[in-house]
């Protein structure tokens, strides 16, 4: 049992043994370390002004990840190197991304700039080639209100193309060594039984801790829990972080299925899912931002039960099974059955999600569409996922699920039934299925969309999916995310 958290900062190991479990990394940086280069723009992981880069050892490799420090718990940096904007310039020389930002006039008011620099630094460190989609994806979680982004994108291209030697390359080995020395398999428990930050190292330890403290808050990426702290001012006296649990982030694959461990980051899930179907890749590309995907996890997104989370409808359409554990007891259920009502899931006190298994769409026809006010880094007004098993032009089985249409991610069973046995050429059957959606959903009006818009778009997405499957083409029906475009790994 380790009673501190440890991380690497400016080449030195920092050990913290007393901190409120809800302490965010940003508050620690600005208020304790008094490094004010990292800014708070929104306090909810949306604007990216607080972006810092964590470097972690993954399979012996040093992997940089941009994260939103405002909603990341301090304890979550255990075992990482924390890099902020102050750390990039060395020996009086700006880092290539900083230099390019200055030369391209990439800053105006400068307040978003530290976050943008760190996002570009992460891209640079990851060895990305200059590609517009990669650059705009890397910036999707960084709002700039002044420049209109053009000079920032130009700066990114320039820096990535220049690839000048920078001190980070030389220091990589050294940092990897220091992180390896920090790595241990100890359970971490900081605080008392009444108030603690715990990070168990094994599933067994996690199961015991959850039983002992069924009132504790389970934290995976904190991309939602972080807002409970910064906006709802939740106390969160007991926090169990899943990030150290060995094996909980496993990805397993067989011929028919893929199983994603609960703590698989959304960034890694994106890579896996993109390999299954381009629409899954596009969906994950538009899921939050790179910062959110670096922290957020598959299990967290599912267990959180958001009615508008983008992963659940896609997984339901794919026929996913959720795995849970409580103490020594394990159970599995169809994912759609996990969601009971608005923000109410079939998860008992002390129980936790271990993994989700999905059926690969191979041999079936999969389509997913996300509709939001803004393409990137927005929450769905309506998200529709469609998986059709078709033989000889006839639908054998249709699995359709929507987000944003009910209090939970939900299957469109009436529409599915209307399509079963229909031929793709049968326009009347398509319209019957669209009509049947009215029986499946009674959406609400809110600030994202009206009920009327949601209803009509839900039907139109079904039309779009069926049209594309029938024609095998999406050039005439899509503005973005065409299926022939491959998605690079992140």
């Amino acid at each position, binding site marked *: 049992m380790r009673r501190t958290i440890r991380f690497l900062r400016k080449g030195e190991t920092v050990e913290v043994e007393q901190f409120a479990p809800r302490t965010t990394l940003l508050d620690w940086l600005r208020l304790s370390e008094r490094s004010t280069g990292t800014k708070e723009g929104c306090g909810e992981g*949306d604007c990216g002004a607080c972006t810092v880069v964590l470097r972690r050892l993954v399979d012996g490799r040093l992997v940089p990840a941009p994260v939103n420090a405002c909603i990341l718990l301090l304890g979550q940096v255990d075992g990482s190197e924390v890099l902020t904007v102050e750390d990039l310039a060395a020996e009086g020389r700006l880092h290539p991304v900083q230099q390019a930002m200055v030369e391209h006039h990439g800053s105006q008011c*400068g307040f978003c700039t530290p976050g943008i620099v760190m996002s570009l630094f992460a891209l640079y460190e990851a060895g990305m080639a200059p590609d517009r989609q990669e650059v705009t994806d890397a910036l999707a979680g960084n709002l700039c209100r*002044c420049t209109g982004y053009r000079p920032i994108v130009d700066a990114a*291209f320039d820096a990535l193309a220049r690839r000048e030697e920078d001190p980070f390359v030389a220091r990589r080995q050294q940092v990897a060594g220091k992180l390896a020395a920090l790595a241990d398999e100890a359970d971490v428990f900081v605080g008392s039984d009444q108030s603690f930050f715990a990070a168990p190292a094994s599933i067994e330890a996690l199961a015991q801790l959850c039983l002992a403290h069924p009132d504790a808050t389970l934290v995976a990426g904190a991309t939602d829990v972080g807002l409970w702290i910064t906006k709802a*001012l939740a106390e969160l006296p007991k926090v169990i972080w899943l990030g150290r649990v060995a094996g909980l982030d496993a990805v397993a694959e067989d011929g028919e299925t893929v199983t994603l461990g609960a703590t698989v980051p959304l960034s890694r899930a994106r890579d896996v899912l993109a390999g299954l179907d381009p629409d899954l890749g596009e969906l994950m590309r538009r899921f939050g931002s790179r910062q959110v995907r670096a922290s957020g996890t598959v299990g967290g997104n599912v267990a959180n039960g958001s009615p508008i989370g983008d992963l659940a409808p896609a997984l339901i359409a794919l026929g996913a099974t959720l795995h849970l554990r409580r103490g020594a007891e394990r159970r599995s259920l169809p994912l759609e059955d996990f969601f009971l009502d608005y923000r109410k899931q079939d998860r008992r006190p002390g129980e936790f999600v271990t993994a989700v298994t999905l059926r690969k769409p191979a041999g079936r026809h999969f389509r997913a569409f996300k509709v939001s006010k803004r393409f990137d880094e927005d929450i769905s007004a309506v998200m529709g996922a469609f998986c059709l098993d078709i033989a000889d032009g006839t639908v054998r089985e249709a699995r359709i699920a929507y987000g944003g249409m009910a209090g939970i991610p939900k299957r469109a069973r009436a529409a599915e039934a209307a399509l079963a046995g229909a031929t793709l050429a049968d326009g009347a059957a398509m319209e019957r299925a669209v009509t049947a959606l009215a029986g499946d959903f009674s959406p609400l009006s809110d600030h994202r969309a009206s009920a009327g818009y949601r209803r009509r778009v839900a039907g139109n997405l079904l039309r779009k999916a069926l049209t594309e499957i029938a024609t095998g083409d999406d050039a005439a029906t899509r503005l973005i995310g065409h299926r022939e475009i491959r998605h690079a790994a992140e």
Partner: protein
Amino acid sequence: MRQSEGTENLTSRGATPRPSMRDASSRPPATTGGAAVAPVAGDDGTTLRYVHRPLPHDSGVRHVSGTALYIDDIREPEGTLHVALGLSPVARGRLRGLDLAAVRAAPGVVAVLTAADVPGRNDISPANGDEPVFAEQEVLFHGQPVFAVVATTRDAARRAARLATFDIEEEPPSITVEDALARGETVLPDYTFGRGDVEAALSAAPHRLEGVLRIGGQEHFYLEGQAALAVPGEEGDILVHSSTQHPSEVQHIVARVLGIPDAFVTCEVRRMGGGFGGKETQATQWAVIAALAARATGRPCKLRLDRDDDMVVTGKRHDMRADWRVGFDGDGRILGYDIVFNARCGCSADLSQGVVDRTMFHADNAYFLPAARIASRRLKTNTVSNTAFRGFGGPQGMLAVERVMDEIAARLGRDPLDVRKANFYAPGRDETPYGQTVEDTDVLAALVAQLEADCDYRARRRAVTAFNARSRVLKKGLALTPVKFGISFTLTHLNQAGALVHVYQDGSIHLNHGGTEMGQGLFIKVAQVVAEEFGVGIECVRITATTTAKVPNTSPTAASSGSDLNGMAARIAAATIRQRLVEFLCETYDVAEGEVTFRDDRVFFGNESLAFADLVKKAYQARIPLSATGFYRTPAIHWDRAAGRGRPFFYFAYGAACAEVTIDTLTGEYRLDRVDILHDAGRSLNPAIDIGQIEGGFVQGMGWLTTEELVFDAKGRLATHAPSTYKIPVASDVPQDFRVRLFTSANRQPTIYRSKAVGEPPLMLANAVFCAIADAVRAARGDGLAPLDAPATPEAVLRAIVGAL
């Protein structure tokens, strides 16, 4: 009047007009320092070395290094306390009681402040006396500050602030324009101006149309939220660090609320993390509350708003309903135009007089209106008080008339660009509805003609039409719209500025002026002007924080006026010192004034020269004063609001944009395919900074008209109070094919180096995006209509296509 120097085009960093986001290999030329680049000819034939150069932002290196300090980054003085606000949970009602016992008892709480703790006047309004620091009997909007908590940490203050119990007798609030119209409640009297007999013109016109356009508001979303740090001094003195565009107003209102003379208060700001008008009047309240807290506790106090609170408690761009009627001839020429702007001003007047006046001043945009009635209502609602936002009302006026142009074109079956051109101001058709003559009608005609050719408008129109004929789900739209924007504060007395320049004995120069830096590059531009005056490198000019202690009684940095006013004032200050140095040289070395030149950090006279620093040292020893103030007031302008006549604007800035979009008729989503912009910044003081203003302004305007939607619920609560729900553009929203160029012709008015103001005008270039989306909607409907309101969210687009949803 000077002749135009023709149209010399500058693009971003002098690059070719390429789709700038694609070419990764090209590196920009180095843009550091002034001495390395070749001199250019000035307005009067002199050689210029420092102005007209694409120098980087003076804080660029600090921005990228995290060392540029904003309010919350200033090292807190020992014992600093933190302030959080208690906000009204209802939009309208009588405050019967307020139980603060739990707040006072909360951990870390040092003081709690309410209206009763205001020693001076409980009023932070800029002029009208209608805006309290803290609500007293009456609650005016959901989120109105009612009290403040002062505590040892920000976290403790925020937690305590939520523990109050309000006793409010709730009344039904007015939320929408319609609510306010039904109640007839206004914050200021209705106001109308115009020319000619509109009713006669309308009834005689061969064609008539009428319509209603709803135009949404806009949240500023400056990345740095509102913040202030107040540090008490001796005998009631107070220093307020405030993220404000208007330090003088903060100073005056802090004094008013504290009940002390202005001279006891100093307000200072080095930079803001964005302003956009949102910190013109509305930074004041937070500075005042920090100052009240500092006075109450005797300790430094900081108030930094949480983002969600910031969005709830600060005003936005005015949303409006424009009701219009137009009569026109067979060529689409307007004969009569009647429009009423119903502006939602919120709970108080704030700047609504000037904002809505500017809507009216821009109801014509670039078009001659032979008969016009431009009317406005300033409606009072139980929502946060709407305020200045880049464009200051102008965008709404211009968007309405662009809608009218499109409707006329659709009715006549003509290309909208042809209708627009037919209506442009021209010789003989050059008087605005408010009596100012447009003296340079040739500039916009030339600019639009050039953009039309450069962007291949006609061929692309044919391609769009062909695409729409064959595409069922996806439809394209194209629009080319002009911008004519009046430059000057319409409140004439604000058109003044001061500067203070010191030259020290080592030759280094201290520059100060009343303008504030919010990212727009004002400081580097003014420094370029001063470097030019003294012939020294830009690094010799130390840019310093704006402070009311150095330059008093300043105007807000607003109305795009920063460089025009402060650049001129700084030049005058620098020229005063320079002239003293020249006279000293002439006396000492017996040379004529005409033989003295300042360049390359030296002063040349006769056959000799001296290092600038050496000259300065000699001048000091000869007891020559090396400090001077400069003062500038804009000439020629006047405005008689009662008569609705005058010359409110010194000049006009022009621009035009062409946008092409594709919409998805199944979802209402859209993609911006290409944008071409040609914008008139006069002879740009700094082309790189100006390109940045143009691109940034355009993208901000695009956000206003597309994804940025403010939603208030029936109880007056803002539902879109965070970036998770309020969507400003991100990098991928900016078209890959984005071609921005400067249309350079010297300002015909004697502005600073014949440049033109560039802060606000480019925002309205985004009208092209809205008109292009409407064009695509028209193509999708096929009945000639495009009932699209702003913002054109996907839902608004789909509704415009299919009718009710």
